[in-house]
């Protein structure tokens, strides 16, 4: 029990990300309203971002912007300790991931608008009934 606790404490943000992701996934699968599903989708992707960013964190290190390196050349003078700066790579990746998720979300919203224009509802069960109404497929 105690060691489990220590485990959790040592990696609590990984646990958090898992929980967050489960919430998002559940919303995507189980919710009936398309917008709620979209919200779930965002939570899901945010969880992943949290995960990556926590990979990048390094104890007692600062943001990856090299101090007193303005103008570049004297950067050689100031010697750089890798331990002082956190890992920049995950942040880069997540910048990309954020943009991708935003783009996806935008398209999804546009689609939701289209669906609403056509069926005047965003509840899945009602949509199903509407689909039955408009008869056999093209």
């Amino acid at each position, binding site marked *: 029990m105690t060691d489990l606790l220590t485990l959790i404490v*040592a*990696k*609590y*943000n*990984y*646990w958090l990300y*898992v*929980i967050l*992701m*489960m919430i998002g*996934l*559940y919303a995507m*699968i*189980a919710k009936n309203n398309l917008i709620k599903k979209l919200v779930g989708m965002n939570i899901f992707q945010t969880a992943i971002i949290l995960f990556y960013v*926590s*990979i*990048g*964190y*390094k*104890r007692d*290190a600062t*943001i*990856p*912007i*090299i*101090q007193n*390196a*303005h103008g*570049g*050349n004297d*950067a*050689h003078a100031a010697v*750089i300790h*890798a*331990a002082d*700066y*956190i*890992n*920049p*790579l*995950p*942040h*880069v*990746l997540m*910048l*990309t991931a954020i*943009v*991708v998720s*935003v*783009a*996806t979300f*935008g*398209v999804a*919203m*546009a*689609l939701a*608008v*289209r669906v609403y*224009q056509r069926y005047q509802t965003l509840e899945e069960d009602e949509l199903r009934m509407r689909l039955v109404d408009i008869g056999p497929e093209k």
Partner: protein
Amino acid sequence: MKFLGFIIVCLTGALLLYGTGEFPGWGDPHSPASIHLSNDYIEKAVEQTQVPNLVTAVLADYRGFDTMFETAVVFCAGLACFLLLRDFKEKKERFYRHTPTGVILHVKDSKKVLKTGKEFEHMDKDWVPSDLIIKTICRILIPFIQIYALYVVAHGDFSPGGGFQGGVIFGSSLILLAISYDLKVLVKRVKEKILGIFSAIGVLIYVGIAAICMPMGGNFLDYSKLAPLVPGDPHHVRALGMLGVEIGVGIAVTAVMVIIYINIVSEGRHEEGL
């Protein structure tokens, strides 16, 4: 469905947690992730690229290829929203306000379009009297926001920031305009065609800068080969290249932000928004 979903979710969660079992502790400076690549970046980036903001350096140079496609994704999203929503059909009914009297006309057939000038003002269906305070404050704020956005783009090499952030801020300033006044004002100021072209041009700047490197004898994206083209210290050519692509990204992101906003709020009609 709910129950099934629950099962699936639990299974996934269990799987992921099982994976965390062997994770290094959080923030452990000796975890592989913090050793293998990141040290190289932290130690070499500045001298190789002259860019102290490592995130920008990695984003726009080491992994610049990713970022290019990321920008392409943004462009794609804008295009998608346009294709999916834009509807050039005129709206059926319109509302006009006779400015001097404040009388509101309700025009039923879409053919009849009153000339909106100083006499008549085209207005939204669910129209709220526009609030002077909000308008004024936004009118004051917007320029500052835009200046700030430009700063964020330009200074991305040295401090947190970059094309995406700057672009988003700039786009939001325009969106603020649309919210505080109304959509027509924005659409009148920023033509749809301009947005469409700029969203492409932004990416084009990026790809162009990257592609020029090839005839200059380098690999794709190899800014260092641009030295002959740009004035000044050849040391900084990489930094300049990054600045260039960041500007491109900024333009693309701004344009796409606005495109998405306009199309979604007006259901593609561009006549009246929120």
